[in-house]
């Protein structure tokens, strides 16, 4: 699978299946938000900030294996969508006939220390050395096209990579102009970032690129701990049968995501709900329109996932926190956290 790409396969070591998404205890907000990015990828990514050891990475990796498979052009390094030639790469656009295959949604890990070559692509050394040909070797951005790009410790990402990501995320394309090569290829992906806020802040420009943001906390009650440890122990001891035990849940959830996707375009957003979202954003003085657009999109995806035909006020209320939490102007002297400010505003503007 694409997510394994950073490491060579290990000799002798046992390759384990990933911990099932449905078996993750707690983390409700993170799980819901991840699902919504699958229902509507245009929501624009997710930022999960929290202490270490809260299971952020585990949850994201588990989510990867839950996603329904997609159709793609066979052999295309960008796995273009055969049904959408206008957003395909040059080769797929010009090809007379396209061979298709079904693949797993790519989930690509962007390691912190990755070089620009590795991320954006580079001259293919092998071809150049052996045959003297100038060929572009696609990087991680190409691999992540139509899928997910996951950056753990996104707040520690080097500035030059952040710049690169901002460009690509804004245009949906990777423009490569180096080493005598000129390549342009589609790179549309959902950005997932996680990190520990104690280790540093995100640059505001990057922060704004994330559609949703959640705060991940470790549960503090014994009962959840016991459940977490028991499930983890069962998985560590015999991952195959643990997976079999959760297979049913996983399939149900996958089917619900697919149903939500199909329903999405039919979900109606009444004017009154639009207005409520706008009033809330004005009351909170969020920067720009992106916040309001995200609330509406997320609320619509939530309604679709929950098999509703229209977006209701409750959907707005539930999505306001993850959509706006990272968009409030930060006043360093203000003691109240963003979460508390939004909760208060929801109560004031939208009522209990």
């Amino acid at each position, binding site marked *: 699978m694409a997510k394994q790409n950073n490491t060579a396969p290990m000799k002798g070591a046992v390759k384990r299946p990933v911990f099932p998404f449905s078996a993750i205890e707690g983390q409700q907000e993170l799980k819901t938000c991840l699902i919504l990015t699958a229902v509507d990828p245009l929501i624009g990514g997710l930022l999960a900030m929290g202490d270490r050891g809260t299971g952020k990475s*585990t949850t994201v990796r588990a989510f990867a294996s839950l996603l329904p498979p997609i159709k793609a052009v066979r052999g295309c390094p960008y796995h273009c969508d055969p049904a959408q030639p206008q957003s395909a790469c040059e080769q797929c656009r010009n090809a007379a006939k396209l061979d298709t295959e079904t693949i797993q949604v790519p989930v690509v890990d962007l390691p912190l*220390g990755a070089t620009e070559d590795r991320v954006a692509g580079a001259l293919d050394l092998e071809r150049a050395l052996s045959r003297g040909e100038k060929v572009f070797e696609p990087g991680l951005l190409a691999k992540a096209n139509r899928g997910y790009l996951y950056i753990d410790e996104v707040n*520690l990402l*080097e500035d030059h990579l952040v710049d690169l990501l901002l460009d690509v995320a804004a245009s949906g394309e990777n423009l490569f102009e180096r080493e005598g090569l000129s390549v342009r290829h589609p790179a549309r992906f959902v950005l997932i970032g996680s990190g520990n806020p104690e*280790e540093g802040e995100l640059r505001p420009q990057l922060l704004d690129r994330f559609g949703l943001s959640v705060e991940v906390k470790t549960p503090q009650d014994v009962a959840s*701990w*016991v459940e977490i*440890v028991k499930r*983890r122990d069962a998985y560590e001891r015999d991952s195959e049968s643990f997976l079999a035990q959760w297979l049913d849940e996983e399939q149900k959830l996958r089917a619900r995501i697919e149903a939500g996707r199909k329903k999405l375009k039919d979900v109606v957003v009444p004017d009154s709900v639009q207005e409520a979202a706008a009033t809330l954003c004005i009351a909170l003085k969020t920067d720009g329109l992106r916040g309001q657009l995200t609330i509406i999109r997320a609320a619509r995806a939530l309604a679709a996932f929950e098999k509703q035909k229209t977006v209701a006020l409750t959907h707005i209320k539930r999505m306001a926190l993850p959509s706006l939490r990272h968009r409030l102007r930060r006043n360093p002297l203000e003691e109240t956290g963003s979460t508390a400010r939004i909760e208060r505003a929801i109560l004031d503007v939208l009522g209990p």
Partner: protein
Amino acid sequence: MTRDDISDATWVAGLLALDGFGLGGAIVSAEAAEDFIAALNTARGPNGAMRVVSSTMSLDALTGAIDLAATLAFGKPVHTEGLLATSPQLLIRRAEKLDTACTSLLAQALDRNQMLLLAILDPYDPEAILAAKLEARLPFVVDGPTEHYWTYSDIERARTKIKTALLDPKWVQDLCDAALAIGIASPRFVTQAVATARALAALQEQDVDESTVALAARLVLAHRAQHAPPEQQDDDEQQEPPPQPPSPDSGESENDAEQNPGDAELILEAIKSALPANLLNLAADGLGKRGAGRNVKSAAPRKSGGQRGRRIGHKRATSLAGQRLDILATLRNAAPWQTLRRTWAGADRMVVTRDDFRVSRIKQRNEATAIFAVDASGSTAFQRLAEAKGAVEAILAECYVRRDRVALVAFRGKKAELLLPPTRSLERAKRALAGLPGGGGTPLASGLDEAYALAVQVRRTGGNPIVIVLTDGKGNITRAGVGNKAKAFEEAQSAAKLFAAEGFDAMIIDVSPEPQKSARGLAADMHATYLPMPRASALDIARPISTALKSISR
């Protein structure tokens, strides 16, 4: 020797020999390392000795890369295999120097149960901290003697039991109770303890019972304790914590759910026996956090010290003197021409000419770190502490846009204290500031010393320190913590002169109601900018500092 009296380190050696990939590894102190590794290698037998690697290894060493010599010789790319694939049992010396990329990869390998890692920290640097990401994934700490106890056949016998060793679900409950009682931060560590208990049972060829659970708790949880477990008795016992178990009949409200209240206490007893002594003296109200026996700060992993600045690309080399050849870029540049050049030069291998040479372009990390030394003594505290706090926060808000860092030293009473190690985090700064009390004498010299030490450390790791002292300059406590105005003045003067000698950028903000001669004198000794701020608000203080920071960070 019986199994009852083998040392903790010996148990860990057996555990890691048995299920190294499953358990992850250990942090090993430099003194204990030699014996421990010898014992572990013996017990691992034909499974291979630990592979010693340097923490300054490149990412390529882990993942594999192009083998340059072979590639040039054969005229086609030859790949080497990385350590992750060839020998996933690594021993890393000076592991605190691992860069973030290697750290991430190692952590991923540990998550997939594909790595056995022993980390040894620099014994000469008491502030060496392993990257939190790895620290959390290594269950054990080895700092005592290891005996040659386990043989390979012991381990092989245990291997057949490890999948079948039964663990009564009530132990999970008890371990969780015990972990929460000593402030363990994440259920991950309980999972590690459960896996350890299983492996211990396998080593002893029995099922999991109270002795294995208690031992697992001691090995995995005790060193992560944030505070001593709450005592059932009242506060009068706290001065001298009882080494004997608390009376079993005293009820414990949190443990209603469990069948046998004695078991969680048994685990806690085992943990207590291994707690660092200073923790036991602290009440379980969170005060213990700062005194935790080990460095569990979630500091960002340090950048490797050897190479300052990051590579931002490469450029054509006009001369190679003193520059580092970027071999990959050079090859890449030569590659497209090879077919042509080979026919032309009649060579049968790669032809590289002077024109192809590329050298790395390195950008110096010019990151500025603002070190605030705040006088929180009685003379300044009550009027100016709030402004000083506000100024630090305001600077921090700017710093995080510019990627600068902020650190905070406070001095009051008898000594100075580092409240906030260099950070970019608003949240940490806020928390550190909120907890800053005021009042007491002015140990000015100690405050300056602490700031100076920090500035030296920042410069050593390639940063650019600027020291900002908020004080009235009236020191009255000596370094030894004694009230003596004349001596304190002398000491402060000599401390200040150190800054001038090192040429650190410094600034003295005089926060007294009237500009003070003492503060002005101090600034002269430090070669620092002197700013009297008799009635400044937080933002007034922040403004000149922010200008100064901007000028040195770019």
